[in-house]
């Protein structure tokens, strides 16, 4: 199978060879059009025969025609001659007759007939002649006299020619009449042919006119048959000769053709044999020169052809072998498969290796069956393409091997005809590796891109002309221009490089651009988009192709503006350090850890113990006295071990003088130390004196400092610019700042803006000498933001030259005093207002009455009196309440405490309001308690009365008021009451007292409340209560808004200001209650639900049983 296929493939592949061969060999194929085949003999014979036949025919026809013409001519000459003889004869006859006239020609006629003249005329075998009149009457004819004799007795009777006895004459006469109508028109000699009984007759009609009316026509007739015999004999002879000629010619032609065609036929047969592959063909020599030459040529051609074919055959075999070898050994997989089904017919070893299948597995199967194709779509595309074009080049094909390995191959396919079947030759080129390489390359490129993008350096790429190809994100960040804007622009145009640097940059880039170098580093200034000027370090390199031509330029840029500035700063610092170093009057030397002298750094000391400068390499022990060297070595050791600088003093004799030196040993790396030596002799000598002075000063300063620090009021030393130079702890406490915070500020910073101008005015006046000191109440702003009122006393400290140095301020916190003032003013304001209101009414009412204007209106006058009286009472109550409250809160009245029965207290209170309760139609329910408390009974009754009175004021007729006393251990009211309606109790406020202390200790526990009260108003013999009596007064009134639950216990803090007038209150009742309860060490609060009622609670401590 393989071989046959292979052979076919070879055949196919060597198709061109066959074309070469075919050029020499006749095609086996029949001619496309069938033609009429004519043998060579005919080709040669027929023209000759036809030519001969033609010539003979022409000659025969000419001979016949000439014969005819000669006969005709001769016949007409004969007829002419006969006619003339008759005419002559008649003339003679006329002349011989002496008479004239008719009788004369009648005689002639008679004579004619008598003499039988016409009978005597012998001019032809069967010719005849006759004479007729114009009328057609027969004058004479041979044999006529016997017909005429019958009528001789009288006038001779003429016989009409058409009735002539002679059949021929009669026929001629009839014919002439028929042809010409009559005989009258024959005026000249007329010759014509007449056909009688299919016989041509030559006829001549000759008119014979003489005087006396003699007008006859002599008609002469000769039959053609008299001449034709000779002619026909000639014709026959000519035909015979022509036939013989034709026969001879044809025979000759046939013979010639046979002799010529024979060698040609042999040539043909030999060619055919050659075409069939029988190469040993040779033609016999011919006696015809041309054919001999042709045979020779043929023989030579056949020989050459045989040789050529042998060569081609050899080449073909070699080609076949080569292909087989190529197929077998090709590193590329090659396969042959059927065109229609796609089954593999043959594959090479590479294919087996590539597909990992065995030959047996592959042959007869399709790629799909083998699962070779990864993508069925590509299979369809392949087939379609092959079907349409028959060939396919470099098709990327994704395959899967037997073991599932995936890869890519380039397929080249060709539709070939093998054994008459369409098949596909496929050569695959496995490019998986290349693909992987491409992917790797792609990834590498992406990585490079990524590197570029993430590089901290700006990355840019330019083409040869300087146009931007790449502009990395970092480049965008450094220069501000976006990659989109920059790509395609020339760097020379976009103003990237600072103008002054441009020429230098161009010069530095020239070697790179001209290929002299592949990289360069330069530093130049660049513009950014936002107009900044930055310094960049540029690393430029040339990207070259394989030929070494410049493809592009790659630049990395780093913004080194900061570094440049730092370097500049560093240089400055170094210079400064050097200057400083030069200015230091010290000896600075460098030693190793072992004490070997390395280098002198600085030798500015006036007198140096080490005189020689060239001591490098010597040990410290050789240079200095042993004790000093030892000291320095130990210090060196310590310094290198701990890293701490060692400072010590040494005394050394230099040039006969004891020199005090301060030595500093400073670590210098890990293996060396700097030893800095300073001459402190002068300092040392003055030290004793100074130490004494300093001691005294220290004592003095300490005292001052102590005074300053421990002063109860704030102290500050303030610079002329207002900066705090020194502050005392008290001042820090007053303004809330730490000392260091305050020292970083000016007094202007913490002074209230409204007070600043005044303060500055005063200080300016003091600096200018107008004031010696000043005192000012002003506001500081505490660090927490609130205002602190202070009293400031400021004085100015001056130097000896009376120049101001600083301010000394004493600051006293007067916030409490200010608060008291504020409260007092507010109280006065309220009291003033509250007193003026009833006074206004009284004054107005009395003023009106006094004029007498109402004398006639007693009702109105009475109303005025009522107003005056009512407001007088109100005024009295108000004054009393104010006094009570004032006494209670100032502690001016000492509540007389005694043991009281709770029930008694309740009853007293209820009794005092009984009349009003009854009047208001309100019921009151009292729940008493058998318990004793230590209290001021009047005060408690007043408290209860106030609270019950309030409840009555806000109750409507029919409402109930509950007054309850019960033991209480401090739990929540709800729990105790068991009411559990949390929603209703949302306004509950424990510790509702509004004194500052109560606000701070806003706890419902009685303990804290007691402690507070005790703190405020200590009661000498207050026992330690373990439980409380809780009083509650509950009403069904309109309730209290939540925001007022606390404030109503303040002064003049009614829920509604008009209540004081409408309800007869002063606005101080609850404040008095609160004060009384607090005096007793209890608490007071209220719970309320709007429109449902309020419950006022207060507690009083209960004595323990033992105490009771």
């Amino acid at each position: 199978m393989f071989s046959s296929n292979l052979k076919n493939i070879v055949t196919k592949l060597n198709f061109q060879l066959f074309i070469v061969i075919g050029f020499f060999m006749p095609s086996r194929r029949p001619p496309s059009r069938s033609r009429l085949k004519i043998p060579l003999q005919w080709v040669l014979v027929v023209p000759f025969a036809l030519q001969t036949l033609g010539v003979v025919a022409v000659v025969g026809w000419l001979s016949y025609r000439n014969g005819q013409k000669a006969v005709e001519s001769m016949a007409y000459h004969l007829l002419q001659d006969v006619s003339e003889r008759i005419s002559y004869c008649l003339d003679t006859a006329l002349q011989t007759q002496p008479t004239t006239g008719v009788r004369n020609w009648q005689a002639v006629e008679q004579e004619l007939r008598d003499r039988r003249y016409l009978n005597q005329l012998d001019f032809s075998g069967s010719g005849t002649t006759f004479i007729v009149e114009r009328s057609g009457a027969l004058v004479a004819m041979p044999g006529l006299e016997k017909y005429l004799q019958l009528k001789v007795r009288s006038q001779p009777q003429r016989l009409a020619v058409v009735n002539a006895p002679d059949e021929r004459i009669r026929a001629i006469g009839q014919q002439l009449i028929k042809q010409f109508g009559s005989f009258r028109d024959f005026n000249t000699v007329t010759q014509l042919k007449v056909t009688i009984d299919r016989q041509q007759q030559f006829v001549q009609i000759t008119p014979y006119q003489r005087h006396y009316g003699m007008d006859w026509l002599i008609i002469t007739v000769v039959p053609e048959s008299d001449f034709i015999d000779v002619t026909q004999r000639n014709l026959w002879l000519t035909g015979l000769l022509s036939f013989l000629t034709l026969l001879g010619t044809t025979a000759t032609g046939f013979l010639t053709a046979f002799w010529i065609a024979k060698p040609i036929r042999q040539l043909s047969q030999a060619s055919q044999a050659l075409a069939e592959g029988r190469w040993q063909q040779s033609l016999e020599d011919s006696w015809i020169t041309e054919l001999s030459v042709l045979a020779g040529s043929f023989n030579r051609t056949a020989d050459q052809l045989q040789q050529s074919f042998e060569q081609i055959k050899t080449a073909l075999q070699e080609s076949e072998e080569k292909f087989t070898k190529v197929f077998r050994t090709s590193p590329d997989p090659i396969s042959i498969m059927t065109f229609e089904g796609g089954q593999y017919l043959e594959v090479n070893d590479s294919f087996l290796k590539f597909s990992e299948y065995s030959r047996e597995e592959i042959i007869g199967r399709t790629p799909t069956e083998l699962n070779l194709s990864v993508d069925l779509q590509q299979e369809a595309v392949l087939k379609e393409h092959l079907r349409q074009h028959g060939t396919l080049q470099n098709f990327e094909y994704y395959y899967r091997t037997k073991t599932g390995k995936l890869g890519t191959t380039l397929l080249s396919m060709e539709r070939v005809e093998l054994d008459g079947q369409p098949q596909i030759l496929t050569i695959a080129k496995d490019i998986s590796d290349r693909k992987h390489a491409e992917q790797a390359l792609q990834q590498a490129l992406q990585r490079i891109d990524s590197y570029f993008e993430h590089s901290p350096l700006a990355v840019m790429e330019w083409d040869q002309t300087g146009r931007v190809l790449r502009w990395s994100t970092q480049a965008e960040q450094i220069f501000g221009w976006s990659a989109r804007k920059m790509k395609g622009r020339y760097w020379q145009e976009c103003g990237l490089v600072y103008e002054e640097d441009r020429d230098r940059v161009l010069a530095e880039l020239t070697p790179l651009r001209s290929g002299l170098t592949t990289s360069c580093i330069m530093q130049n200034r660049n513009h950014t988009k936002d107009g900044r000027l930055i310094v960049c370090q540029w690393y430029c390199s040339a990207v070259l192709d394989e030929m070494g031509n410049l493809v592009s330029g790659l630049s990395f840029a780093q913004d080194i503006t900061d570094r440049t500035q730092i370097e500049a700063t560093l240089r400055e610092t170094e210079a400064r350090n050097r200057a400083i170093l030069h200015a230091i009057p010290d000896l600075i030397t460098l030693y190793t850890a072992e004490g070997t002298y390395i280098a002198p750094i600085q030798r500015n000391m006036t007198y140096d113990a080490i005189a020689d400068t060239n001591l490098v390499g010597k040990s410290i022990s050789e240079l200095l006295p042993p004790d000093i060297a030892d000291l320095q070595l130990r210090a060196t050791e310590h310094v290198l071990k701990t890293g701490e600088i060692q400072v010590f003093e040494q005394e050394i004799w230099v040039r006969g003088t004891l020199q005090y030196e301060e030595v500093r040993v400073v670590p210098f790396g890990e293996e060396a130390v700097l030893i800095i030596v300073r001459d402190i002799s002068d300092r040392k000598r003055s030290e004793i004196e100074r130490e004494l002075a300093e001691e005294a000063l220290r004592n003095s300063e300490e005292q001052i400092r102590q005074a300053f620090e421990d002063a109860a009021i704030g102290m500050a030393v303030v610079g002329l610019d207002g900066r705090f130079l020194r502050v005392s702890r008290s001042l820090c406490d007053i303004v809330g700042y730490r000392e260091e915070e305050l020292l970083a500020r000016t007094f202007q910073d913490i002074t209230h803006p409204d007070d600043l101008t005044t303060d500055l005015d005063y200080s300016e006046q003091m600096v200018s000498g107008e004031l010696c000191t000043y005192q000012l109440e002003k506001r500081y702003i505490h660090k927490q933001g609130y205002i602190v009122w202070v009293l400031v006393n400021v004085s100015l400290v001056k130097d000896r030259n009376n120049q101001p140095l600083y301010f000394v301020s004493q600051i006293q916190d007067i916030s409490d005093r200010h608060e008291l003032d504020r409260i007092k003013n507010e109280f006065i304001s309220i009291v003033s207002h509250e007193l003026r209101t009833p006074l206004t009414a009284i004054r107005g009412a009395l003023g009106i009455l006094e004029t007498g204007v109402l004398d006639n209106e007693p009702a109105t006058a009475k109303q005025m009196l009522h107003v005056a009286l009512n407001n007088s009472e109100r005024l009295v109550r108000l004054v009393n309440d104010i006094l009570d409250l004032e006494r209670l809160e100032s502690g001016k009245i000492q509540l007389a405490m005694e043991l009281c029965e709770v029930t008694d207290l309740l009853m007293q209170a209820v009794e005092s309001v009984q009349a009003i309760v009854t009047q208001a139609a309100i019921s009151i329910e009292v729940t008493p308690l058998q318990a004793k408390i230590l209290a001021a009974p009047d005060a408690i009754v007043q408290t209860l009365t106030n609270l019950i009175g309030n409840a009555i004021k806000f109750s409507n007729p029919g409402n109930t008021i509950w007054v309850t006393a019960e033991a209480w251990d401090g739990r929540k009211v709800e729990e105790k009451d068991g009411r559990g309606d949390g929603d209703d109790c949302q306004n509950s406020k424990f510790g509702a007292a509004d004194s500052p202390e109560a606000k701070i200790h806003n706890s419902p526990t009685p303990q804290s409340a007691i402690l507070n009260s005790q703190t405020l108003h200590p009661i000498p013999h207050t026992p330690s209560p373990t439980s409380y009596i809780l009083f509650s007064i509950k009403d069904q009134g309109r309730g209290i808004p939540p925001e007022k639950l606390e404030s109503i216990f303040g002064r003049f803090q009614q829920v509604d200001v008009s209540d004081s007038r409408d309800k007869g209150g002063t606005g101080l009742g609850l404040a008095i209650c609160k004060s009384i309860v607090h005096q007793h060490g209890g608490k007071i609060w209220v719970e309320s639900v709007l429109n449902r009622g309020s419950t006022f609670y207060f507690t009083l401590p209960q004595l323990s049983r033992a105490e009771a």
Partner: protein
Amino acid sequence: MKRVLVIDDDFDIRTVVKVALEKFGGWQVAVADCGAKGLEAAKAEQFDVILLDVSMPDMDGFCVFEQLQANSITQSVPVILLTAKVLPGDRRRFAEMKVAGVITKPFNPVTICNQVSELLKGNT
């Protein structure tokens, strides 16, 4: 005959002022017991002057005055404060207001009409 509106929360004072203005001035007096009612009355009726108390619950005199000024109808009506606030701080505040004048409580009922008239004159 002047038409006067008195806005004061104290019943007795309203009564006294009304009687005094009517008897000694012969003026027509309307009264309101709170700021809101006063504003309503001032908008509903044309008054020659409004006597306004300062310390009132809910809406004080300052607030009422502000609203009177804000309204195109009432802003042209002169307002005289009738107040028991006499401390320097209060006076400073009154001075900043564009009121026709201030009459302090207690006032003389016989002369109050003259006081009002004088203040209005001075204002014009």
